[in-house]
């Protein structure tokens, strides 16, 4: 029932622990705000990844069962039959800003609960301030970013800065020049070229065809081939994460989905491979756009260091598939980050820790 806390303690070499002066020194946190899942790393060494979803008990019975008025994270997915669920993010942005009326209010409240849960995951003391750097999609609008800041502040995070997600990944890896970061998420694929300075609008690109689109495509393909099979989007998502591949392997994606209520073993290898494979052209096209608009003298440098992060980077064979795609456009080298789930949050935390304290104070006063 409870939110699943994945409190893996970080290695000291991974991240610096900010010395805490009694109970008053501010905790620094880095947040990768994801459409599907959000990750947080704190200066106290806490790490947590949770589903970006909020749920309210459907009725008095379920409220009695859960013992609380609202649930956040994986617990919502596990108990969604007894909950009214809400995903506060769409395409990497807070969804409420584009809505109106009751729907907007519900999405806004969901976003607020999500930020509160992320703040609590940092485990601050009662009087301890929290300063956060939050990763947003590369092409997030000013309104999107301001909505993030406002909601985070409302959730009790005193100091908030927003940074583009791929830049946070680059910062985590110290890949601040001659590199291209590709962050494959559920809602978007964010690309950012690093040329030794703060990336501008012209250095970043967001592809709105990502993990959720793959899930949708797999659903389409299965329905086309086996219309009698019963499944949900979440079942497809889990199968994709378990079996996704863009290259031919001997391993078959065998799942047990009900057919007329009877569990039936079904082979969905081809559907997953096809849907996942459709991502590759989107990524290589985005890379090519950013490379071609760069100084011709240095294009080869960023093409030769393409760093892929995010949950989508774990697709089997993606590295070879991308290099194959880049070969047709002039070649390039692709590397997958070791810790794709936390890379963005870790980079955001690094930024938060290295940001001068007076900046945080100024933001805290002004915001």
């Amino acid at each position, binding site marked *: 029932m409870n939110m699943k806390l994945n409190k893996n303690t970080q290695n000291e070499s991974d991240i610096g622990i900010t010395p805490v002066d009694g109970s008053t020194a501010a905790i620094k946190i880095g947040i990768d705000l994801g459409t599907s899942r959000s990750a947080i790393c704190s200066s106290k060494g806490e790490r947590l990844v949770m589903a970006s979803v909020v749920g309210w008990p459907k009725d008095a019975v379920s409220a009695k069962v859960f013992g609380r008025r609202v649930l956040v994270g994986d617990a919502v997915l596990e108990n969604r039959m007894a909950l009214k669920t809400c995903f506060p993010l769409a395409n990497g942005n807070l969804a409420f800003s584009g809505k109106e009326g009751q729907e907007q209010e519900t999405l806004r409240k969901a976003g607020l609960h999500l930020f509160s849960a992320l703040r609590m995951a940092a485990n601050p003391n009662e009087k301890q301030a929290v300063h956060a750097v939050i990763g*947003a999609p590369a*092409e*997030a*609008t*000013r*309104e*999107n*970013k*301001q909505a993030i*800041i406002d909601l985070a502040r409302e959730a009790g995070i005193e100091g*908030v*800065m*927003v*940074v*583009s997600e791929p830049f946070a990944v680059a910062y985590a890896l110290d890949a*601040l*020049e001659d590199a291209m970061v590709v962050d494959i998420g559920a809602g978007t694929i964010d690309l950012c070229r690093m040329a*030794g*300075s*703060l*990336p*501008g*609008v012209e250095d970043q690109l967001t592809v709105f065809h990502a993990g959720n689109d793959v899930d949708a495509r797999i659903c389409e393909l299965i329905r086309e081939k086996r219309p009698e099979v019963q499944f949900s989007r979440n079942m497809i998502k889990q199968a994709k994460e378990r079996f996704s591949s863009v290259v031919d392997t001997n391993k078959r994606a065998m799942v047990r989905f009900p057919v007329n209520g009877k569990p039936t073993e079904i082979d969905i290898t081809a559907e997953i491979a096809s849907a996942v494979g459709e991502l590759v052209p989107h990524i290589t096209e985005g890379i090519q756009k950013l490379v071609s608009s760069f100084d011709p003298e240095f294009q080869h440098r960023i093409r030769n260091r393409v760093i892929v992060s995010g949950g989508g980077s774990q697709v089997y064979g993606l590295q070879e598939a991308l290099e194959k795609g880049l070969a047709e456009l002039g070649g390039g080298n692709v590397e997958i980050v070791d810790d794709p789930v936390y890379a963005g949050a870790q980079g955001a935390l690094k*930024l938060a820790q*290295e*940001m*001068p304290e007076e*900046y945080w104070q*100024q*933001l805290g006063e*002004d*915001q």
Partner: protein
Amino acid sequence: MTSENRPGTSEQNARSRSKQNGRVHHVEELRRKGIQKVRVVGQSQLQELAREAVARAVLELAESLEVSEETKKSLVGRAQETILKESREELPEIIDEPAMKPDVQLKTPSTDAESTAVSLPMALQDQEMLKELSRLIARDWRSELNSVQDSHRAQVERLEMRIEELTRALRATDQVLTRGKEEKGTEDLVLMPFDHKKEELLDQLFQANVALREISSGLDSEDGTSMDGEGRSA
């Protein structure tokens, strides 16, 4: 040193001399005090005794000096020449058992005047001798002090020269190290240029967030381009 059979003026003379050279004692008085034997010391013997005492003092002084044996010998030799230049004269007479032979006459100088005449020059000679000895010792001391000072000066000069050499070597080492550091710094600048810009980058990020807030609050609503770098308008 005194005469029993010539009290009167001789006693007055003895008193006056005693102010200069010592006290005059009557034989009876000495006997009452239990003195049974008196050594009568002649002028030359007294001079000899004085020389011996001075020579002993010179030897003791020479021993106490921190100079080479050769210097000591030389010093003592010169002192001996000066102190013991006159030959030894008569030995002192010993009067045995004076109490048993009360009539014995102590051999004394013939007259007080003679005694006084002889005593004064002797004291002057001793004083002169001591002055000479003092001069000798002082000269030797100065000589030794000078040699020691010369030695020290030479050592100090050598030390100063060595310090100067070491200082020059130290400066040269510093220059080499400084040059190496500057070269290394230049290499770092070439190899890791971005490390030196991190503060600037963090500052830019901060400014972008400040601009974001300002735009949102309407302070800069008409100038969307102030958001340098991060994000774009909807």
